[in-house]
């Protein structure tokens, strides 16, 4: 059997892509609504949360590299306990996938394909996802690597492209809305940062380096993703202003539409959005891949994940179609419910795993002492 491997740089870029592409579409709207001009500072605490769960995972995986989180669950909790935890994770990952899929379909309907029904767009994206996912994690990592450069370049160049529209008065006064507003704004982004669990689930199994030197690639990715989101947020608030950003459904789309360099470069937004959409599709592909890995680990014996790639299509499509009645519901789910569910589930999951790991270590120590 061919061994799949991805490099540390690819892991870092995939993590960065996972965060920045995922939040580019709509989270910033609710964050600006809550914290006004201070919304750009709201990514710091979620970043600490994301980094914390990665650090805990590194500790959990110590000495057990080369397996997925779902296999680790089974090793630490036994067959039945591990399968039950994998089942819970399956529902979590499925919810994450359908939210992203529907969000992208709604975004494409608003920006590019105005007359196409959302379900048709969603089905097309799903087919593309299945095609890429069947290529394996290496294909996703390579395509992600390529598009992350473009995504990062477009975000970093935004302040320069919008320098004529930017007003520093929109960003000031800093920290004027108090800590409560900042806490609420940070809470909106926690759900999206908690989604790095999908990366954690598979990356330790496919990494080249078992113990990479320096900062772990996933931590590098979280920091870089946060940097991009902060740049985007400052540019948004400084250019569009807080009142419009908090009311618009897709404020970042309004931001790129504000680029007016010359007359012939007036529709630069189409080019920028065409870089953002593939980056988002990479996130969906990775989610889908993790979902197949998860479901193949639920039965007592580990199955071939590829066997579930096509059969998951109808379930994901039906759920994506029926779960949300409108974009407003979708945004509410992502910013209110999702953050709560993510924090609750991950606190329970990691507490159980930490206790199980400590018990296993103690048991092993006792066995060594006896021999």
């Amino acid at each position, binding site marked *: 059997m061919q061994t799949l491997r991805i490099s540390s740089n690819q892991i870092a870029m995939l993590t960065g892509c996972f965060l920045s592409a995922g939040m580019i579409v709509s989270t910033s709207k609710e964050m600006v609504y809550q914290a006004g001009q201070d919304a750009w500072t709201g990514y710091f605490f979620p970043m600490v949360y994301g980094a914390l769960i990665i650090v805990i995972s590194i500790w959990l995986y110590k000495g057990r590299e080369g397996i997925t989180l779902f296999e680790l669950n089974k090793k630490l909790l036994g067959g039945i306990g591990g399968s039950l935890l994998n089942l819970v994770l399956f529902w979590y990952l499925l919810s994450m996938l359908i939210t992203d899929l529907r969000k992208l379909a709604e975004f494409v309907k608003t920006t590019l394909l105005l007359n196409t029904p959302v379900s048709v767009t969603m089905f097309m994206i799903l087919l593309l996802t299945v095609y890429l996912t069947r290529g394996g994690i290496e294909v996703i990592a390579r395509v992600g690597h390529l598009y992350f450069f473009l995504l990062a370049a477009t975000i970093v160049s935004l302040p320069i492209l919008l320098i004529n529209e930017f007003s520093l008065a929109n960003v000031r006064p800093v920290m004027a809305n108090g800590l409560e507003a900042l806490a609420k704004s940070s809470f909106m982004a926690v759900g999206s940062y908690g989604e790095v669990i999908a990366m954690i689930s598979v990356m330790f199994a496919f990494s080249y380096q078992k113990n990479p030197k320096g900062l772990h690639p996933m931590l590098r990715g979280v920091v870089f993703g946060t940097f991009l989101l902060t740049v985007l947020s400052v540019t948004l608030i400084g250019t569009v202003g807080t009142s419009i950003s908090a009311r618009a459904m897709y404020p970042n789309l309004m931001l790129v539409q504000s680029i007016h360099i010359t007359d012939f470069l007036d529709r630069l937004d189409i080019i920028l959005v065409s870089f953002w959409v593939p980056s988002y599709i990479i996130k969906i592909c990775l989610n889908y891949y993790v979902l197949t890995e998860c479901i193949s680990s*639920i039965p007592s014996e580990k*199955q071939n994940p590829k066997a*579930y790639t*096509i059969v998951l299509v*109808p*379930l994901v499509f*039906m759920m994506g179609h*029926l779960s949300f009645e409108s974009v407003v519901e979708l945004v*509410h*789910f992502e910013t209110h419910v999702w953050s709560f569910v993510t924090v609750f589930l991950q606190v329970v999951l990691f507490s159980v795993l930490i206790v199980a790991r400590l018990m296993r270590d103690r048991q092993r120590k006792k066995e060594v002492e006896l021999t």
Partner: protein
Amino acid sequence: MMTLIVLGTLLYSQYRKTTSDKLKGSGNVPYYLIALLAIGMAVGDDSGMTMILPSRGLLIWFDPILEKLIE
């Protein structure tokens, strides 16, 4: 239309599964669970079947509480 898409995809994947024989033993359980859920949703559409969707159920139950807490 949706039911047709769902059934078509399931039939195709069933065909692929039987020809490639990728699943073993209890691996068939999640496979048939997915099929059952997808067909149930396609047939049930907007009736009570949608309540079993994780995201829809969570949205209906938790959103009003969290909305009050945040506001």
